């Protein structure tokens, strides 16, 4: 028998001390939590907690690693339960005021069980989808930084640090931005859960890592220039962080001036540029009936490009003429006129627009490869204005992108950069009644191949068309507590049953779950703090050989 030498050294005698870390990766100790005692791939694995593990330290969303015989299983905790070996413990609980009794019973007769869902298998060749489960009694450890890095990779030119997993605050969760932008992205969460903040972090990553350009319809002036956070601090907008890569446009110069927010130029839209299709998108927000929309098409056909202005200015005789010569009813026409008259309150709409707003934006996005923040100023509170402008611009940019992509099939150098269009209150654009017709619905469903994707921000994902939701590649979700919203977000996600508990129990702030195309597995993160450290990290210029040579005076050419 091999026996320890020192009878006074109990650590030698008890190497399986429950509290002692028994697995170490890269010098970081992992605590042994328990052993697998049952479960299945679909329902998750039951893990009996070791006697020394405090069940209160477990948390849904936290990562654990199961060491199988040949590979590691990266898992997420999605349920925690209390069990006992004898049911009579419940009717006659021991007196745990006596420390000895407490220490004997806790974790032994009465013990904790966690249910963990295997997310990935890690072997020598890296993470892979999980298709099997570890055997009985395989040991379960807390995930170490090394385990997390094996799954989410190191930060590099496409991987961007978006935060840290729960309980592992020194560890980075890196999002693959290339994968993020190549499919549509959804940022969901209740009001006040930090959606804008999360979106700013994502957009800052995309811009910093140059993985695409973004057109941001900035409803509440959250992204462009200086923003006041909820706690009263001023934080930098994307325009301040990336002055060379972001252009700020505004629909309301007065508001920008009042806020002391810099902008590159003001956007105006001409009445003559608005088409009936743009009006049709406002059907629910402006309470337009089908007959009113039909009337709009008829008026456009009769009066040509200036139909809106003519309708607004229309005299009683004009309207009589219309009702007498078309099948448009007088009541319908009057109702349409009253609704369209609201446009007069929007000063960004002008009779004749001198410049081509769409062309300006395309020039910035494609030729200068700059992201564009379009601030709405005071019009952000008017949903009709927001929807009209977003629809108007997106529909035209969409057409241009299709043209450019078709041209680029013959000449790859003409290929435009990946475009991420960011919209807020997305369900208004993508609700089932309109999603099939709107440009946004088309982009969400089909435009991936034309290098245009959406970044939708919404607090009611259940109101978004199911088909559109199914096309959202990456979902970043802060707290949701409505059952329908949770179902909508989890629809189509593998292992959704386990994530439901996680999603419903996120903190109200500074916690989010990321799942889908850009991450190898769903991950609960504490997002990076949007502060000076973040500014410095995203604005730090990587060393570029070409620019370095230029700066050294060689003109970019190799010296011999």
């Amino acid at each position, binding site marked *: *028998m091999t*026996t320890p030498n020192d*009878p*006074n050294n*109990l650590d030698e*005698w008890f190497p399986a001390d429950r509290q002692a870390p028994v697995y170490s990766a890269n010098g970081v100790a992992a605590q042994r939590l328990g052993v697998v005692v049952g479960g299945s791939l679909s329902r998750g694995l039951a893990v009996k907690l070791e*006697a020394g593990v405090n069940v209160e330290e477990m948390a849904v969303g936290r990562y654990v690693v199961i060491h199988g015989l040949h590979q590691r299983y990266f898992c997420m905790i999605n349920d925690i339960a209390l069990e006992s*070996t*004898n049911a*009579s*413990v419940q009717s*006659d609980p*021991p007196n745990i005021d*006596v420390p*000895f*009794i407490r*220490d*004997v*019973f806790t974790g*032994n*007769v009465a013990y904790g069980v966690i249910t963990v869902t295997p997310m990935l298998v890690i072997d020598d060749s890296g993470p892979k989808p999980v298709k099997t489960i570890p055997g009985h009694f395989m040991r379960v450890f807390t995930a170490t930084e090394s385990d997390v890095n094996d799954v989410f990779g190191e930060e590099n030119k496409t991987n961007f640090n978006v935060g840290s997993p729960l309980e592992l605050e020194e560890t980075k969760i890196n999002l693959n931005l290339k994968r993020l932008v190549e499919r549509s992205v959804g940022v969901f969460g209740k009001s006040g859960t930090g959606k804008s903040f999360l979106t700013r972090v994502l957009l800052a990553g995309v811009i910093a890592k140059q993985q695409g350009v973004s057109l941001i319809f900035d409803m509440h002036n959250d992204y462009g220039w200086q923003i006041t956070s909820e706690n009263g601090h001023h934080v930098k907008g994307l325009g301040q962080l990336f002055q060379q890569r972001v252009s700020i446009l505004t629909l309301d110069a007065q508001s920008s001036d009042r806020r002391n927010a810099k902008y590159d130029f003001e956007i105006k839209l001409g009445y003559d540029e608005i088409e009936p299709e743009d009006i049709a998108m406002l059907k629910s927000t402006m309470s337009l009936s089908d007959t009113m929309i039909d009337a709009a098409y008829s008026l456009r056909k009769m009066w040509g490009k200036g139909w809106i202005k003519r309708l607004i200015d229309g005299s009683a005789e004009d309207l009589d003429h219309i009702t007498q010569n078309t099948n448009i009813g007088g009541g319908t026409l009057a109702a349409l006129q009253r609704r369209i008259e609201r446009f007069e309150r929007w000063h960004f709409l002008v009779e004749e627009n001198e410049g081509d707003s769409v062309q300006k934006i395309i020039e910035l996005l494609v030729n200068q490869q700059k992201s564009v923040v379009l601030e709405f100023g005071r019009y952000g509170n008017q949903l009709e204005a927001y929807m009209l402008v977003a629809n108007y611009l997106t529909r035209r940019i969409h057409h241009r992108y299709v043209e450019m992509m078709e041209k680029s099939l013959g000449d790859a150098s003409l290929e435009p950069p990946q475009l991420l269009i960011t919209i807020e209150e997305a369900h208004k654009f993508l609700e089932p009644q309109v999603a099939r017709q709107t440009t946004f619905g088309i982009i969400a469903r089909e435009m991936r191949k034309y290098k245009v994707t959406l970044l939708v921000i919404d607090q009611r994902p259940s109101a978004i068309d199911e088909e559109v939701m199914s096309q959202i590649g990456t979902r970043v979700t802060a707290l949701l507590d409505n059952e329908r919203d949770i179902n909508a977000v989890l629809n189509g996600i593998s292992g959704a049953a386990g994530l439901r508990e996680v999603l419903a129990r996120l903190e109200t702030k500074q916690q989010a779950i990321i799942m889908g195309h850009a991450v190898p597995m769903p991950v609960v993160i504490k997002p990076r703090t949007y502060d000076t450290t973040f500014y410095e990290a995203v604005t730090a210029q990587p060393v570029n050989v070409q620019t370095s040579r230029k700066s050294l005076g060689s003109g970019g050419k190799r010296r011999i």
Partner: protein
Amino acid sequence: MSDNAIVGRVLRASTRGFDCGTHSRNIGEQHDFGAFVKAPIANSTHIYAIGLIYKIEIKDDQLISELVLGEAMPDSVLRDQRENRMIPVEIKVINVGYMSGTQMIHSMPPRPPMSLSDVYLCTAEEIFYFTQTHDYFRLVMGAAEVPSDDLLAAAIRYSAQVYPGDQDRYGYMVRCGRRIAHDLAHDLNRVTHVLGLLQN
């Protein structure tokens, strides 16, 4: 517990346990209920049966019966009967394992000790090694002929003395308690009873 203190000599034995006898004047702390004792098994020089003392019997005889009834008995007679009577005190031991060289096995020994073999008190080091695992609990708890709950509690309290320091001793007691709770999971009342005995 003193090292290699002699408990007595084997009177009768089986693989399940053995009885040993000693003179009544030798009775002392080495004969405590729950003490760990050892005896060499038959025809072996290195295998010792390890057992727990579960019963100490002082038997009577005809003279004792008469003396009990006698009145105004001189002290010298009583003392003579206590110290010089030729009926041994019987110490009953249940086997809970055996020691083969330095190996400790929690199972019944392959052979019983021979009659008249010396029975020794286990040393502190032997108890320390033997109690690193608790598999012997089942042998005690399953033995119908012994007061198993009290014996187990006494044995644990006895063996706890070899653990240095209050914290280590407490840790040992908790580990034993956990094992008892595990093994008797179906009978919570009994667990509570044994744990209560351990705390006393």
